[in-house]
């Protein structure tokens, strides 16, 4: 027997969400959406529980999780960083800003720092093009960023 271990409250939460969707395999995307909303991400053990509850193969669940870019198996950091790659930000050098964040944090897009503090992601336009290039850390918006400001911004969270 292979044992898959998960905290009791998480198991119960997942079961509750699956039951809300009547444990129907056809509702798997809704289930994944909701579970990610609750737990922040969808690690392997969580997918195992969902597969079991919905009576479908784990491979299929994993196939869905990896197909949609919205789903993630990596937990977001305490301070999730989002770099705007929308047109306005892009032409004003957001790629260089992204590179600087990558360098400072030593992670790539989609990853989280080993201490769990920061995670790095890109998004397309936050509707603040006048402030381009724009970076979001948590809910806070940073505008007109230059590469030399990256270090001091990160220092705010240390």
């Amino acid at each position, binding site marked *: 027997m292979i*044992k898959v*271990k*998960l905290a009791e409250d998480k198991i119960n939460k997942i079961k509750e969400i699956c039951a809300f969707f009547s444990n129907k395999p056809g509702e798997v995307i809704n289930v994944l959406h909701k579970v990610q909303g609750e737990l922040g991400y969808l690690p392997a053990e969580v997918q195992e529980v969902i597969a*079991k509850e919905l009576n*479908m193969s*784990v*491979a*299929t*669940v994993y196939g869905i999780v*990896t197909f949609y870019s919205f789903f993630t198996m990596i937990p977001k950091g305490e301070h999730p960083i989002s770099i705007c790659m929308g047109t306005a930000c892009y032409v004003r050098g957001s790629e260089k800003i992204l590179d600087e964040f990558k360098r400072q944090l030593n992670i790539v897009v989609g990853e989280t720092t080993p201490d769990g503090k920061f995670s790095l992601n890109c998004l397309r336009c936050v509707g603040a093009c006048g402030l381009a290039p724009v970076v979001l850390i948590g809910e806070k918006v940073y505008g007109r960023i230059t590469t030399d400001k990256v270090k001091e911004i990160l220092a705010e969270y240390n």
Partner: protein
Amino acid sequence: MEFVNIKIDDKPVQAQKGQMILKAARAVGIEIPTLCYYELNGQQLENRPGGCRVCVVEVAGRKNLAPACATEVMEGMEIKTHSLRVVNARRTVVELLLSDHPASCLICSKSGKCELQTLAQKLGIRDIPFKGEQSMYKKDDSPAIIREMNKCIMCRRCETVCNKLQTVGALSAVNRGFMAVVATAFEQDLAHSTCTMCGQCVQACPVGALSEVNQTRQVIQAISNPAKTVVVQTAPAVRVALGEEFGLEPGTIVTGQMAAALRRIGFDYVFDTDFAADLTIMEEGTELLERISKVMAGDKSVRLPILTSCCPGWVNFFETNYTDMLDVPSTAKSPQQMFGAIAKSYWAEKIGVKREDMVVVSVMPCVAKKFECQRDEFKENGNPDVDYSITTRELAELIKQFNIDFNSLAEEDFDNPLGASTGAAVIFGATGGVIEAATRTAYEVFTGKTLDKVDFTALRGLEGVRSATVDFNGTPIHIGIAHGLGNARRLLDMVRNGEANFHAIEVMACPGGCVGGAGQPFHHGDFSKVEKRFEAIYREDAGKPIRKSHENPYIKQLYDEFLGKPCGEKSHHLLHTHYFDKSKQIEVEG
């Protein structure tokens, strides 16, 4: 049935309403090339993702080319299957596929049998104009199946076979775009997935992305080592399929040529798994009767039905999916393993060879047998009862490597004693055969009467799930049969839910039974080849002088000289096994 009138390549055709263009064309002998399309006639399996676009055709009045496999015929439709536009598009599609495919055909295990290679030849492709990125996936070596996904063309046949036909659920398409690939959950190795090693994905793969672990080299090494006594055993289904590798019609029986070829290759003793199949019947049949008597006497410690346990893919399947029923399958080892256990005890002793100096090779129609012979419970101090299990295809390779002109070989017999067998053993190779063989013996033991007619035709056939009742002199014995793991699941779910009552159930993991095994010559979706092998199995049985396992004189001798009685102490040690819970359970952390 409703029909529509269409024209294919200017030829007026009456096609069935609702039919796809591909089938309508094939029905009138117009061949449209396909690649991802895969169907097993009569087994309710169709892979039709419409993804490869090799089957595109031109439909008058439509702007875009249409995939023939996924476009329904309509009244008045005019279809061109090889216009210039079609031929050019088809060529581009294949060129694009080849641009992300390793050009290692010279050394690929699938070379000569690859559908992509055949197609490229057919379309006369001599250049790949597109240069792009190449997929770089990790090679996955499991004990039985190798996955080289760099060769994958995303036809998704394996995924469909694994999920729809077998309901194993080990494979799924994962990731997207260029990174898309068919993989297991969390892209782990097959060995760590729910894979049963049945290998039907290997049988379905059009290219060399999925193949069996090839052990021909180890076999040649063993044969050329003078210190080793090398014993070979051949499964029943091999003799009705091996000929296909040498251009013979499917269903040609080549038992005699096969024995001759094995001797030419240099095996010291050419024996037959059929002998062990007869032995299996003695053990499993006895176990069946004992269990039926106990249940009839009200013994609550045991329950029915008894399930056959010859098929290693099936064993892996129930060890993962039916762990609440691990007491139900027969404890009898499979014929392959019974043979190994007897060869390395009884026979080794008889000819004065030490266990470690004997090498047992099995030739199997199967990929899962490679996994089975590596299981720890089939080893003694690390020495396996069966050292190497090779497929029918690998045996054909060996014969070719030894420059043997197979078709001109004179027929030879197996060696005795472990080469003697009955018709009951031969039918192990077809779905329903094991239970028919068991019935032939169990009937006579149970009733004390001799059967007038040994053919139990009610147990034969190719429907996925079958049932029949055999009258044991007033006692009705209910028998269930399933082949293909999806069908097995349907039958077992009925038993689990109390919706069906059987005394005994036979399950084979592959469609058609072992004749349709994953180690057999590739049928490329032509299931009629499997049907012809199936018929040949019963012809071979009918031609045997002895057709009941308990009448095999060498089996009697084995019990007299060595084993004592069926299900006795020695049998229990050598010929029976136990099962493990391989399911995944969710547990609270802490």
